[in-house]
């Protein structure tokens, strides 16, 4: 299982980003891989609009199975859903704590967007 986690920096003690579309990047963890990869989310910075969509596209193109985040807007959620990616929400403050919660099965699966769209 391949996981992506929306963060504000790289590494296992990185904080979870409050905003999916404007997350600094994504920590990617594969089952078989001991060391996490970090993909920056900088392509969103110059976009006039649609940062959440770009972030979702980035995750989809990484072919992850599960994304862990704090909040997800409606367009990003629709795209992740269309790609068959499970969207899990966490209140944990770091990547490691979110991973531990995932292993323990205590994360909430989102059935719909958790915040309004930004239209920008």
């Amino acid at each position: 299982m391949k996981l992506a986690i929306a963060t504000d920096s790289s590494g296992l003690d990185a904080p979870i980003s409050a905003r999916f579309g404007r997350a600094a990047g994504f920590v990617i963890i594969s089952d078989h891989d001991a060391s996490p990869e970090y993909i920056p989310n900088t392509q969103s910075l110059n976009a006039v609009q649609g940062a959440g969509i770009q972030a979702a596209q980035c995750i989809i193109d990484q072919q992850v199975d599960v994304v862990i985040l704090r909040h997800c807007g409606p367009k990003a959620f629709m795209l992740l859903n269309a790609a068959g990616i499970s969207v899990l929400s966490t209140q944990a403050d770091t990547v490691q704590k979110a991973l531990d919660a995932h292993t323990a099965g205590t994360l909430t699966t989102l059935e719909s967007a958790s915040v309004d769209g930004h239209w920008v």
Partner: protein
Amino acid sequence: MIIAIASGKGGTGKTTLSTALASVATTPVLLLDCDVEAPNCNIYIKANLAPAQPVTVPTVTIEPLHCNVCRACLDACQFNALAAAGGKIIPLPELCHGCGACQLVCQSGAIAEVPHRIGQCQTGSSGHITLIEGRLDVGSPLSPPVIRATRAAGNAMPDALQIIDAPPGTSCPMVAATHGADYLILVAEPTPFGLHDLKLAIEVARSLKLAFGVVINRAPDTATPLDEACKADSIPILARLPESRRIAAAGAHGELLLKAAPHLGDTIKQILTTILAGDKGAVA
């Protein structure tokens, strides 16, 4: 001739002045309500409006049988209005600017454009005034396409005198409403916010290379910092309209300015005469 009326700050009296100018014109006049997010001219003009024409922008649909998900369209789109998920291309119409880039790059003929409604345009007349009102649908985010459609409807009658009631502000909606005008009137109020926002509007007027002048509304009898700022920058003050509770109350009830204050008739006519004579305008 096309005269546009704008301001930096909202609520300075653009609609009051636009409708007043239209009312004193001695030739048939087109009044374009380009404040499409909040169109108010017809509250004063009271024209019977013909059925509305929808204003649409082109957005895309993908024909899955032709699409091979090559993603050229995604790469070409600058607005993130296309995504690839679940083995297909997904359009996001609210983000689409209708530019046509995706269709240009698609090698499979899989992209078709469909009109997506964002607002409407309505025409009506009252006496010698023909009103063209643009109105953005509530929930649609982008006003410039509705403004452009309203301007295009006006340009279909090129020989008429056109008066354009522009939206407040100094960004793309105001630019879409005032672009290409022969003269721009900036309506300002002599308050700190009014002066601050007028300076921004002047910057836009200069960058658009429009001849312009200022009408000061709700002006006291004495000179204000706004009067001084205009004089210091050689900006013509076309008129100073007085502060009046009675005029404000009449306007609140949808009364045209010159019905409530007929003594201002000569002042309003003089603004129009000056502009039509073409002898007053700040250097752009």
